[in-house]
Every structure is written in C-alpha cells, then in structure tokens.
C-alpha cells in the first residue's frame, strides 16, 4: 500500500463515507468546483454531484445552521470552514443551537464541522488560529484534532458516523508534510481515545496535533543528549478527554509536561493540569508544566510567529527543568 498525505487521508475518508451512506453530504465555501482552498474535497463534486457537494455563499452561520437542520432530518452533513478561524462567525450557532439541541429538545445534530487549523505556516492572525478551547468548554460538542494521516482518516470516519456534532480540526502544517499507510479495510479510529506516540519512563509529554511532532523531535534530543526516556501522549480527541490515558501516563512517569500550540490562558493545558491535580496529585514528583503559545495574536513575519509559537527547543528546555525537579 502506498503512503498518502494527511490531506489525502481526509479526502479518502470523505470519499468512502459519501460512498457508504447516501445521507452524507458536503457543504462549504469553494469546496465544489474549486475543490476547497486546500483541495481537500478535490474531485468529489465530479464524483457525487452538486446535491451532495454544495458550494455555499460566504455564510458560516448559514452553513452550520443548515447542517443542523439537515441533521435533525436524518442527514449527516460534513461542512467546511475555509479556515477554522472563521468558525468564530458560527460560534452562536454551534454553542447555542447545535451543542444544546439534543439536551434541550432531543434533536439530533449528527454533523461534522471541519477546517484547516493551526500555525507554523506564516498565515498571519486569521489563517493560523487554534480556536479549540472555546468549543471544548461547551457541553454537547466533541472536538478531535489528529496528528497523523492514519488518525486523520480514521477519526474523520468516526466523526461522520457519530450521532452528535464533531468539530474536526485539521492541522494545515501537517496537510502535506505528514504521510502514512492507511490500514486496510474500514479504518475507523474511536473518538475519545488517546494514543501513545512514544513509550517512555522518565517524563510524559501530553500534546496533540502539530506539536505531537515537535514533542517527538524533542524526545529524540532528550534521549540522545540527556539520556531521558520521554513518553509522548497524542490526545487525538480533546472533547471528551481521555482521562484514563492521561492518568496512566502520570502514574507511570510521575512528571508531566503539557504542550499545545493554542494560547496559554484558558488553553486545554490548564484543564489537564487541574484534572491531574484533583485525581493523581500523589503520583506527581514535580508540578505539571506547560509549553504553549504566548497569549498574543499570531503574527505574520516568520521571526515573530516562531517566537510566539512553541518550538522544539522550548519543549527541551521545559522537559529538562521538569526532569531536574
């Protein structure tokens, strides 16, 4: 089997689910004739027609709202935010309408909202964001953010089959840089399960998305230069969090560094730290540390962006401090 990119893996998942279930359809800005800003949906209009691959006006509220309405009627819409930054336009519809629908009125909203996310790409303030924390905070939504091509495919298929709304963050830095060989058959990765990206004994790095790769690089350096055995946990799903996997790695290494590309204040690292404190404080040999983006809108210039975002060297520095505690 040939390797395919993270982006192609997502397209393969969409294609297979469109094929499998006539209720699945796609909606978004420029996703049809143009194939999407990043070409994720390239070729799908020709294959499935304009009733199932729908080009919309520039209307994130309408896209998400219409997906909810279709979801109520038994459809399984997958909608694209051209850049995930624009999901802010649909924040009301997602948090007030979609997230509450099942609970307040027994209305199912099986739908996926997907979009290119994240920085390290010189995209500037509106094409680089990681807005996941605002949605993790909202009961009723599920949030996934894969780091590998295999997970991108398997989680997308799980998201489409889920009976609730799943926000599917795709890291655009990984779109064409990360490749994998897809497992044969119907490859579905369950939502809510973390993955051990690297086994280790001395300390744990808990992270997700692009910084999984930064953490793995840091772990290599720490092994080579310091002889440290670093475990890397890839959360894969941010809501619901895989508490068991988090607590298991705490109990194993007793030292935890949480890394994310999202800004620091209100980022999920704070939540993970609190859960560890409440549940396995006695297993800690050191305080939980965080490596995150600075609390700064993401700037455009390479020197500025690289300063704001977490880098491998930052993770190495923090891991050394943690190991020396």
């Amino acid at each position: 089997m040939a390797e395919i990119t993270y982006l192609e893996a997502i397209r393969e998942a969409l294609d297979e689910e469109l094929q499998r279930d006539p209720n699945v359809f796609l909606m978004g800005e420029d996703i049809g004739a143009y194939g999407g800003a990043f070409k994720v949906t390239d070729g799908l209009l020709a294959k499935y027609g304009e009733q199932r691959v729908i080009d919309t006006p520039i209307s994130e509220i309408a896209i998400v709202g219409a997906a909810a309405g279709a979801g109520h009627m038994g459809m399984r819409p997958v909608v694209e935010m051209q850049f995930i930054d624009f999901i802010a336009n649909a924040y009301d519809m997602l948090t007030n309408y979609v997230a509450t629908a099942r609970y307040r009125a027994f209305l199912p909203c099986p739908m996926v909202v997907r979009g290119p996310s994240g920085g390290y790409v010189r995209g500037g303030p509106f094409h680089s964001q990681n807005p996941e924390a605002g949605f993790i905070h909202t009961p009723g939504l599920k949030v996934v953010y894969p780091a590998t091509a295999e997970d991108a495919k398997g989680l997308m298929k799980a998201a489409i089959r889920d009976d609730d709304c799943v926000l599917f963050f795709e890291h655009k830095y990984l779109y064409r840089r990360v490749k994998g060989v897809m497992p044969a058959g119907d490859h579905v990765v369950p939502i809510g399960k973390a993955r051990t990206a690297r086994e280790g004994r001395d300390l744990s790095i808990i992270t997700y998305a692009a910084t999984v790769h930064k953490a793995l690089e840091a772990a290599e350096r720490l092994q080579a230069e310091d002889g440290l055995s670093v475990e890397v946990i890839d959360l894969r799903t941010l809501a619901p969090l895989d508490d068991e996997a988090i607590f298991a790695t705490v109990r194993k290494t007793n030292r935890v560094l949480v890394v994310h590309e999202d800004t620091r204040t209100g980022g999920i690292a704070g939540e993970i730290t609190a859960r560890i404190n409440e549940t396995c404080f006695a297993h800690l040999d050191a305080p939980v540390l965080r490596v995150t983006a600075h609390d700064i809108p993401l700037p455009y210039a390479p020197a500025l962006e690289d300063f704001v975002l977490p880098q491998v060297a930052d993770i190495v520095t923090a891991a050394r401090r943690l190991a020396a505690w």
Partner: protein
Amino acid sequence: MAARRRRAGDGPGAQHLGEALPLERKLELYYWMRLTRTLEERLVALYRQTKVVGGLFRSLGQEADAVGSCYALESRDVMSPLIRNMGAMLVKGATPVEILKQYMAKGDSPTRGRELNIHFGDIGEAGKTRGFLGQISPLGDMVPVMAGVTMTFKMRGEDRVGLVYVGDGATSTGAFHEGINFAAVQKLPLVVIIENNGYAYSTPTHKQTAAKQFVDKAIGYGVHGEQVDGNDVLAVYDVTKRAVDRARAGEGVSLLELMTYRRKGHAEHDNQSYVPPGEIETWAEQNDPIDRFVRVLLDREKVPQATLDEIDARIHREVDAATDVAEAAPFPEPHDALIGVYADPPVERPLWYREGADVSGLGRERAEGWGTYDAAKGGAR
C-alpha cells in the same frame, strides 16, 4: 430533484384563498385563535400563582398572524415558530397540556424540564411527526436551520414545505440574512414570515431598520415578497397559502411581512413604559384580530352567536382539563439533569461532591428568594 409543475390557479390574481375557505374551516380558524388567547390567559393566572417558574410571553392581538399563516401548511410540512407563535404551534399539533407543562417546568414536559415555554419540537418523518421545530433565544437562528430542513426535502424529493417566523427585530441579525440568502440561492421550499408587531422588546421598528418596510428586503434577496394585514386572519391565510403553494411548486423562497401590533410587553414583567400613550388602547379597541373575525363570522357568514359560544365553552373545558393534568404532573428529579448531553455517553457523571449527596432539596428555592442574604443575621438562612 423531482420536477414540479406549477398548478393552475395558484398564482396571484387567483381567488382569495382565505375567503374561499368553507365555513367549517373558518370556524377552525376561530377555534385556534380563541384557544391561543384563552390558554395564554390561563398561563397568566398560573404565572401570578408562581406556578410558571420562568417568563411568560403573550401574543395578545397577534393571534391571527400565527394561526392564519400556519393553517396554510399541510401536516407533512415543518414550521418553526417565534415566541409569539403559540397559535401556530397549536395549529401544528402541539397540545395545551404540553405547553402548560413546559411553562411549569414539569418532568414529563416535552423537553423534560430542560427548556422553557414553546421552545420544543417534533420533527422528522412525515406522518410520524407533527412538524414543528422550537426556536432558541438567539433570534434569527431558525432561518438557517430551516434552510437545512427544507434542503433535506429538496435533496430527497419530498413534497414538503418549511415555514419560519421571525420578528421585526430578528431581521437585523446576521443569521436571518445568511439564512434567507442561502435558502434563496438554493431555491429551497421555504416561506419566511416577518411578524412586524412594532417592537423588539422596547425597540421600535424605526430603530431596527432604515428600510421603509421589511418586505422591501425581498427584492434584495431575489425572492417573492408580500405584505399583508396580519390582524386579518383570512388575508394572512391567503398570502401564506400562495407562498406555500409557490414553494411546493419549486418556485423557491417567499418573504412575507405580516403587519400586526404587540399589545403586551416583551414578557409579562415588561411595563411597556416606552409605548406612546393610547397606542395599545387604540389597537385593542379598533384592531383586535379575534373581534374582527367574529364580525366576519357573525355578519358575513351568518354564524349564530350560539355557535361561537359553544366553541368558547369547549375551549374553556379543554384548557381546564389540560391545566389539571399539567398541575398534577411531577417535577423532574435532580439527577435527570445528567441525561442526554450526548448520544454516547448517554449519561454524564456527577461531580464527586454530588456522588451520594442528598440532592432532594434542590429546586425548592424560588428565584425571587435570591439576593435576600442579610449579613446582620449572618450565614445561611
């Protein structure tokens, strides 16, 4: 999409569809309008007895626009109401018991005590569901959602139409604009009704829009637009039926502006201090939709007064019986709060300090009791 041909006699210039209704259907319109008013009057009584635990929203003086428009739908069609469309909910099959239980936050209300008033729905397959979808409080949101519902009808080739209500205020939201524009582009079978009752909470229409009239917006969206006297139930039925028929015939979205007047405040607590003196009284005396329709029935249709009296008496019996059922219904159990945020998992875990804790006293405190902490007395009271 299945080809749909326009049927002869559907277009403008055809006979007045409301006036052409047979008498027994006109009496149904009277029944629904009177039921709306009587049920709301009962809710006011229950509110004053503190049995309605939240706010109470009236549609006094607007019964014709809700009833007349929704009456133009078939049972398989789907309607999404606004807060002042209880009449439309009743026409579409919501029952007085359901509405009373909703307002009283009962455990076996349609939303099991999770949501208020007429914020509940029953949609899905035609024939198995009544076809109404409750609104949420952020205004305008139901327009995109109903675009999605009607998009499903189009995709599946189902002969079904959607109707969504917004108020004059909601036309200022992004959701309204995006929703109607998307529905127009997709040529969806959707009727959008702007219920222009003069006020959005306290804000008069001239502070809501610089447009001369809301129906003018139809041109901008490239959809069919009509404005009508919203207090004339037969005229409301007439324009809505034509818009529904257009939608059913594949001719896309219509935007209807129903001119009416909100005689009560935004909710029962609102003293309407912002309303010019005499305005409410003038509408009540000269333009009450039920009074107007009673005159039509008595004078033009030669309905005996006794027939209307019988309907009124029947409505009182029905509302009395529904009130008894709703009052006797249980409140939800505190732990029911944990059920159904997601399909999977079906139940959330309580926080550790609630595990095994006595929660039997929760929900007993009345909201009015808040803010009565007296430091002089010290501590809890």
